[in-house]
């Protein structure tokens, strides 16, 4: 997906639409900040996730970060391959490195940044 078409949380998770399904991941900026990724902990299919609340964790050698959901709904699918090999996330965070697919309970993107706004946000937080 094109980064500009996505919506973002300040904690660097993105959400995009693929038909009725919301796809969730973390941004390239976040992946670069985290450096050597070693592990991703994802929810189970069927779990309910809530916007602004944690749904998993991403782990590098030196730190662990919570993953916050940009969307509320039921988890339809997770990118379980990442639990064995995180390289798709490191190499293609907006594509093959997606984290979960959710059946959203509403279409609202209120409170999320759009692509250009997020780019600006990263510029300021990088200083």
């Amino acid at each position, binding site marked *: 997906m094109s980064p500009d078409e996505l919506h973002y949380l300040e904690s660097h998770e993105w959400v995009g639409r693929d038909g009725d399904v919301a796809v969730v991941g973390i941004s390239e900026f976040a992946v670069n900040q985290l450096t*050597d990724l*070693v*592990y991703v902990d994802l929810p189970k299919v069927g779990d309910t996730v809530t916007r602004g609340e944690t749904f998993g964790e991403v*782990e590098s*050698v030196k730190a662990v970060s919570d993953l916050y959901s940009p969307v509320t709904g039921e988890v339809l699918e997770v990118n379980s391959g990442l639990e064995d090999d*995180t390289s798709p996330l490191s190499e293609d965070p907006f594509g093959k490195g997606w984290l979960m697919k959710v059946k959203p309970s509403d279409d609202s993107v209120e409170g999320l940044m759009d692509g250009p706004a997020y780019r600006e946000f990263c510029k300021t937080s990088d200083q």
Partner: protein
Amino acid sequence: MRNTLAIRPLTEMSRPGYRAARFPTPDVPDHAPADVLPAGALAAAPPELPELTEPDVIRHFTNLSTLNMSVDTHFYPLGSCTMKYNPKRHERLAGLPGIGDPHPYRDEADLQGMLQILHELQGMLAEISGLPAVSLQPAAGAQGELTALLTAAAYFRDRGEGEQRRKVIFPSSAHGTNPASAALAGFDTVQLKPTKTGLTDLDELASKVGEDTAVFMITNPNTLGLFEKDIEAITALLHDHGALVYIDGANMNAILGLTRPGDFGGDMMHYNVHKTFTGPHGGGGPGAGPIAVRDFLGPYLPGPVVKKVGGTPERPEFALHTPSKSIGRVRSHFGNVGILLRGYFYLRTLAAAGMRDVSERAVLNANYLRSKLKDVLEIPHPAPCMHEFVASASRSKKNRQISAMDVAKRLLDYGVHAPTVYFPLDVPEALMIEPTETESKATLDQFADIVRDILTKEDAETVKTAPHTTPVRRPDEVKAARQPVLCGVAKGCGTVPVDEVTVSA
């Protein structure tokens, strides 16, 4: 010389039929396990342990020991860890018959000497802290924290404030155990922001303290090696809101006999006997984390504690006692007695004058080293420091790409253990240095010279690729985290026929 054969994994050295330990022939011929236990409970074969001779085992572990740095072999200025010399006399005394061997369920009447030692230790720890009620039960500092927080929770619940007081506050420079212990005791955690001075910002603290605050946890001197000069105002603020103050005793080595947590407003604290009172660190443990608390918290302490119940001054009598509103137990048995004993031996040797001397020398040594290093490393906080200080390698990182970790690794080549790196998190490229009181001026001078050479004389590439002389270099931690291997598999078992085996008697 390095013996690579002897340090192969035990499972690779194993040969069928080899064995070291032998046991008596059964003098009770009946009651074989197969006769008295149901067949369904028995394993087909014993566990696959390695089979070795006694010389194999001794060579293996003796050679492994030579791959370690330790206080006995190297200067070990690891900040926050108080790597002081561990007197050899303690080891001998802790193993005396009657001291090292009593079973925990022996009758109290037959343990009066042990109980006297533990009772005396309780009293000494109360005096040093200025807090009268002591529990020796916690197994380590982190468990001491948790125990004290559970004690506080029980106290608040008893007062009807259990639902209300949900928060535990701590500075950003706190040890990671503080928030971890608070979470385990069921509290919400609130972290203060880092400050320029390195000291707690009273205004920020005041903005976070309220009637929902249960405990403020603070290390004093703090993890930057600075005494919290506003400690009285801090503790008064907490007490005004009905909250309690916890003193993390990790840095007690700086203030023994100089000031006491109870005197500066602390309500609870833990000791790290393995730091301050020379219980050896053991490669990561065991520790002992006794806690001392104010009298009104005493009834909630875990049991048992030792109480004097009578006897004569020459032959007092003691008993185990569970406090009236005790939180219960935080572990099985009395405590890590073997480590507590070493603390007792240390205190009985040094006494009051010695305690003060320890801290004065620890503070002088740290300030001396700080002064010797102040032009080669940045030291973000003003002098003087207490028993340790935090320096920063950010200038060398910027100018020469030499990080704190690089300096740490290069020190190993010189036969010096590295300081603590990257803690506290508030200081970039942190090197936390604690020389302790047991190091001589000559050792400190030598260390300062080495650091100076590394930062000013050596070429950056040598430092950045260090260490060069250690048994291994820069292990791949990413690999260890991505595909963790936590136990070995047998590779060479079964290659030697049983009849060729020599057995050590």
